[in-house]
């Protein structure tokens, strides 16, 4: 579905990615784990078009998208729920969701938007109670849910999540991972970047370990979970 070949990217003048190869098959959950500054966010921003200065090749469903703009990439069906709960803070929860479906508005597809919203409410019932509240006044966990929900409103083929568990209480983390599994069962392919390596490897089928801009290890998630090196460096055993 997504093939990243020898991707090099520059972020703030430094080379954050030094030739990354990545392959995501349709229907699975793939995770990228790594420490702070390993280049995880840069990788995601490169895939979604936010980072323009990059070399290499990114191919999505047989189409090269390396030089595409973010809005072109999202219209192909790749949605990124960015790190740090980047919701539209001064707009209501409902407006945030509507804007997630911005492309459908442009195509005047109102009934689709209603169905999408119903689906989102089913996964995140708390958002329905908060519809008219300003997004900036939600709690951290709720903002994280809204960020994911907004990305889901794109009805993406590939949903990319950057640190969905960051700064959240364990209960919220559990809830968000449950939602991801349910989304995946409904056919959404998921690329998950996490510092919480244990949780990520438990839900994913395949994993990549990123260190200072290169993939140092990859493999099936259940094997990575028992890999001695990973246990020491990322799982805290």
């Amino acid at each position, binding site marked *: 579905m997504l093939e990243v070949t020898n991707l090099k990217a520059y972020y703030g003048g430094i080379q954050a990615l030094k030739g990354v190869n990545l392959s995501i098959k349709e229907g699975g959950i793939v995770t990228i784990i790594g420490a702070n500054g390993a280049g995880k966010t840069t990788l995601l921003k490169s895939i979604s078009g936010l980072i323009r200065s990059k070399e290499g090749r990114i191919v999505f469903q047989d189409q090269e998208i390396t030089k595409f703009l973010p809005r072109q990439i999202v219209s192909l069906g790749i949605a990124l729920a*960015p790190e740090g709960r980047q919701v539209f803070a001064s*707009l209501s929860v409902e407006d945030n969701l509507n804007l997630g479906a911005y492309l459908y508005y442009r195509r005047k597809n109102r009934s689709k938007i209603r169905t999408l919203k119903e689906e989102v409410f089913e996964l995140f019932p708390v958002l329905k109670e908060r519809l008219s509240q*300003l997004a*900036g006044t939600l709690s951290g966990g709720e903002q994280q849910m809204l960020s994911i929900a907004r990305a889901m409103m794109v009805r993406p083929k590939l949903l990319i999540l950057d640190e969905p568990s960051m700064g959240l209480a364990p209960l919220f983390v559990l809830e968000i991972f449950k939602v991801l599994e349910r989304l995946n069962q409904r056919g959404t392919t998921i690329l998950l970047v996490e510092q919480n390596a244990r949780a990520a490897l438990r839900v994913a089928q395949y994993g990549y370990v990123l260190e200072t801009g290169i993939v140092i290890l990859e493999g099936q998630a259940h094997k990575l979970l028992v890999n001695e090196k990973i246990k020491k460096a990322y799982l805290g055993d």
Partner: protein
Amino acid sequence: MENYGLINQLAQYLITGITVGSIYAIVGIGFNIIYNATEIINFAQGEFVMLGGLVMVTLVHTVHLPMPLAFLITIAIVTLVGLLMERLAIFPLKETSVMRLVIMTIALSILIKGLAMFVWGKNSFALKPFSGDTPLSLLGASIVPQTLWIIGITVLLVVLLSLFFGRTIIGKAMSACADNLEAASLVGINAQRMVMLSFMLSAGLGAVAGMIITPMALMEYDRGAMLALKGFGACILGGLGNFYGAVVAGILLGLIESYGAGLISSGYKDALALGALLLVLFIKPSGLLGSAEASKLKKF
């Protein structure tokens, strides 16, 4: 004039205040539109008003176009100026700080003022009122019909804009860009287009303000700065980014000026209006209608 009672005078000041205040309100809303989409304070906002007035004068009195047609063409021309301004001066600087862009708008306002002086000279120009100048009488105050045009058009603009920003997805998308540019592009919004749109909208709005005020107050090339200052005052006083705030504060500033000029001295009217602005900001820095919570999220 002794029998011209105090009540009548007060009513007269009220009308004048609301009229002048409506103009400040429109200019304030113009500031808000660009601010909401870009976080830029566009100090060339007053220049749109000046251009609106002078272009209208030329079209009506030199080209002899009928008023309604001249009105529409003026909006189109000034909107085009707004578009060019964004394309030629703001867009090329894209990845820079907001502060630099703000300074750029100051440069542009000086440039536009200079060009206007070149085209129209330094004289003040009059424009004939939209529908005659036989005064109407209300509560003993005499009202020229242009007053009603000004107040009516202001109300209409406020209603249209609140529908645009409150109900349409394009309006929401513009706010989203201001809120978080990166997230906006991630949901597929063309942020550059929104910035362009905000400048056009704001320019067109300024043009309307210029056209409706010129029959009452004349227009000359260097009026922009003072109008921008008062409009900016309205925008800050009402709470930066808040449309209704700008309307309430604009009219309040107009009233303070009008009553100040009438009851104290016309020499103090600017001082009184700006003094009131300072006072409110000392007590409530987020402005009359601005929420303290929202202002925490703002850069200015």
